[in-house]
């Protein structure tokens, strides 16, 4: 802190000296630059559209989970808010998109945008509840909101179909052009495009001054407030954004599987998405994406020999992960990847 002040000769109240400003802009630009590994990652996902036509259904699920985990990363990894009720937004998004379709608006993009906007509003409204108190109260409030919404969906059977689920969703072609097919190819391409666009947006946002201020709020809210970052305002904004992302993920699920059940709002969804994010690592945006791939592969593998009890292995994995140390495990893998990337 003091070093920063000494290096910056500009008097308080004035703009920083041009040299400092240039350095800040430079640093921001450096953060924003695309790394080779990122290009490889997205090239690989693009290749999966073309090379793995038989796996599009599961890949579609992965893309949706990835978007959902990405949205959790925005609040958990970048703002340090622990949420055990993130499924609330996912579920509301799914129901919103599903209801649009059953009420005659079959254009997927309209449902998608509506789900995003509705959840942004919901996220904004509930953020004021979530911001209060400690980790524990946040946990309980997020969980409580998801539970209430789950009950609502269950009780309002006339609207949501209740325990039977929302049936009879039939989607029109995307943008009046791309018809959904049986093999999930359109669905996957659609989900992947949405994921990519929203990922780019999230990448841009988190590498902006706004994103940096979020990191400061995460690491030390007191100090962040002292240097003039509006802590609560930042949290409201990022929570709203994350809610919209989760809503879009839910909408994608409803549209591509053409079915919504109360399951989308259940506790295990919130727990799973947290797990996905933790597997991949928090706070660098790719965590949710990598985690979703690993999670689905793991699920496939474990469900192969113990279909009913795969949560047992997930539980063991979680316990081991925490005992070994999240940073060490995820950080170790990340370091190995970095080393590999440098060598090639």
């Amino acid at each position, binding site marked *: 802190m003091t070093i920063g002040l000494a290096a910056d000769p500009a008097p308080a109240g004035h703009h920083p000296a041009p040299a400092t400003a240039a350095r800040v802009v430079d640093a921001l630009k450096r953060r924003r630059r695309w790394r080779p590994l990122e290009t490889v990652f997205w090239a690989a996902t693009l290749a999966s559209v073309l090379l793995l036509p038989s796996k599009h259904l599961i890949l579609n699920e992965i893309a949706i989970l990835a978007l959902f985990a990405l949205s959790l990363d925005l609040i958990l990894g970048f703002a340090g808010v622990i949420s055990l009720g993130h499924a609330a937004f996912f579920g509301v998004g799914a129901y919103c998109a599903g209801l649009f379709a059953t009420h005659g608006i079959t254009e997927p993009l309209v449902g998608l945008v509506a789900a995003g906007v509705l959840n942004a509003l919901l996220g904004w409204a509930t953020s004021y509840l979530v911001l209060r108190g400690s980790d*524990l109260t946040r946990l309980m409030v997020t969980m409580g909101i998801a539970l*209430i919404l789950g009950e609502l969906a269950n009780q309002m059977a006339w609207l949501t179909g209740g325990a039977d689920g929302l049936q009879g969703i039939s989607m029109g072609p995307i943008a009046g052009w791309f018809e959904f097919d049986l093999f999930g190819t359109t669905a996957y391409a659609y989900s992947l495009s949405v994921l990519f666009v929203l990922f780019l947006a999230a990448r841009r946002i988190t590498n902006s001054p706004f994103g940096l201020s979020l990191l400061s709020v995460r690491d030390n809210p007191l100090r962040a407030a002292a240097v003039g970052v509006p802590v609560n305002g930042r949290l409201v904004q990022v929570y709203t954004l994350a809610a919209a992302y989760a809503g879009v993920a839910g909408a994608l699920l409803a549209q591509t599987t053409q079915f919504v059940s109360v399951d989308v709002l259940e506790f295990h969804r919130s727990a799973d998405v947290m797990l996905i994010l*933790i597997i991949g690592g928090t706070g660098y945006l790719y965590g949710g994406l990598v985690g979703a791939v690993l999670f689905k592969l793991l699920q496939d593998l474990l469900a192969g020999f113990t279909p009913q009890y795969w949560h047992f292995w997930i539980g063991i994995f979680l316990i081991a*992960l*925490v005992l070994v140390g999240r940073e060490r495990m995820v950080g170790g893998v990340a370091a190995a990847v970095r080393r590999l990337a440098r060598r090639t």
Partner: protein
Amino acid sequence: MLTLLFDGIAYGMLLFILSCGLSVTLGLMNFVNLAHGAFAMAGGYATIVLMSRFDVPFVATLPLAFLFTAALGLVLERTLYRQLYGKSHLDQVLFSIGLVFVAVASVDYLMGSQQQIIKLPAALQGRVEILGVNIGIYRSFIIAICAVLVVVLQLILSKTRFGSRLRAAVDDRRVAQGLGINVNVIFAATFAVGSGLAGLGGALGAEILGLDPVFPLKFMIYFLIVVTVGGTTTLTGPFIASLVLGVADVAGKYYVPAAGAFVIYTLMIVFLLVRPQGLFARAR
């Protein structure tokens, strides 16, 4: 009306026995333990197994359920929980969710996913009419046991040396440690007793709350409400919170069945709005 109140009180008493151990975990170690319900479930299943496999009478299984879960709690505390006291809340949440998943899947594997039914002895079945109030015998049995436990716990906490050490440790762990109180031993003992009480609650409550492998998930939120609303420094706080919660839940489910579950969730959120830190002020 009075019958409803009576049922609500029985339910609230059960909730208190189930969750008072958690209030110590949260208050003393600031540990977010979502797996508390797993101990309750363990107690419930211990009773089931003892009754069906070894023909132990129901009442005799209760102390055994307590001892079994207390031992289980002690082992887990010494091996796993203690390594997590210094870690972040996120790590504790992940760990305890993992534990819940393991417990749910293991019980599902060992006992099957169906609801377990406890055959109560004939002496505890049925209802009697006292002063125009229809009273279930089993519920009055629960209330009697829990009332005795509450008094005993309160006496231990306020009159014994162990109790005053525990209170000191909850109030300020570091100072207590500085005064030569071995907080770790106290905590291990309290954790074991708390788990045991949860197990006892699970065994007692199997009749009323139902018992199946997803029990820890279903009741997690109830325990957390009791603890956050009731606070951790006294037993009276959680006790009153449990009674209110029990009566509100039973009454809510009876009068407005459609809105039954909303009542408590809404109450909880409103409460946390008014008292953001809860009465649980030491939350960091």
